[in-house]
């Protein structure tokens, strides 16, 4: 009996390892964990995109469930998702923009031309807040709860499918708990 166990155990171990490794197949390796998940938005003090004299802080993100959308004019995927953000904002979703490593004038021109879905836009010229959030590629969209805590981060374009399958269930969950 022990004899059989000795000879079978390498097989058992290989199978266990195989199953563990198999579950990782098909995972998108470019999607990283969100280090800031369930942490408050890092402290910041940055000007408003539309008015260099007005400064915004993490306090401006508190109050209700909000989307924080990281975008820039140099980012083609941001253009791709912009139309859908406009749609969401028309439906009454509160979206705050984080203009990331961009120039003020082209960014304002972009909003003029493509429409402005944002309640206000934080102008993060040097990517300071982006860095503290762990932004590694625009567009990124954060779900921030009423207390200013990061509840979810989506890297890449937000479209109808992403909205329905990932954001809606979370929004319902956090609206209920708040």
């Amino acid at each position, binding site marked *: 009996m022990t004899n059989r166990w*000795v000879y079978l155990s390498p097989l058992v*171990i290989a199978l266990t390892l195989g199953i563990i490794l198999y579950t990782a197949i098909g995972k998108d390796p470019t999607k*990283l*964990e*969100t280090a800031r998940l369930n942490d408050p938005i890092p402290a910041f003090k940055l000007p408003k995109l539309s008015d260099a004299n007005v400064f915004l802080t993490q306090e401006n993100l508190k109050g209700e469930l909000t989307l924080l959308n990281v975008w820039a004019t140099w980012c083609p995927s941001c253009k791709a998702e912009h139309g859908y953000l406009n749609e969401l904002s028309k439906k009454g979703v509160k979206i705050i923009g984080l203009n990331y490593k961009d120039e003020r004038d082209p960014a304002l021109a972009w909003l003029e031309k493509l429409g402005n879905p944002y309640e206000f836009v934080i102008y993060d010229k040097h990517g300071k807040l982006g860095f*503290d959030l762990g932004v590694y590629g625009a567009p990124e969209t954060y779900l921030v709860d009423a207390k200013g805590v990061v509840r979810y981060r989506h890297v890449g374009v937000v479209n109808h499918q992403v909205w329905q399958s990932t954001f809606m269930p979370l929004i319902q969950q956090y609206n209920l708990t708040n």
Partner: protein
Amino acid sequence: MKKISQLIVLILMSPTFVSISYANVDLYEFSSSEYRIRYLSLIKELRCPKCQNQDIADSNSPIASDMRSEVHRLVEQGSSNDDVVNFMVDRFGEFVSYKPRVQPSTYLLWYGPWALIAFGVIIISLIVRRRSALIGTQEDSKEGTHEEVEKLLANYSGTRDDKN
């Protein structure tokens, strides 16, 4: 064939290739050579979140360049190596460290190979011990057979002598 290899050598020697390998030399100044050495080792230990499988020393993506500048700032501020790595892990996750911290989620990574080696050694030693035990008993029985053979041989030679 020779022409192709000459072409390859030419391509590798061309200025575009050479310049790529020098693309990421930042011109940071350090107040001490110890800081410079620590900076250089840290940027090799941190992984670029955007261009995965490259360290931030090796990558010219904007995020890697931002990270290098933060490493420089932190080192100059007097932060320890652990502080710098923790600073990056807080923002970008465990992924950015090529030397993951030892914690429950990385136990498998750190101790898994050792556990497998230990397990293999145990299995092999069990098998070897069993084999040698088996061979031992076989040798005992060999002694017996040896005597028998001698006896048979003796008988045989006896009969042969008779014939002669």
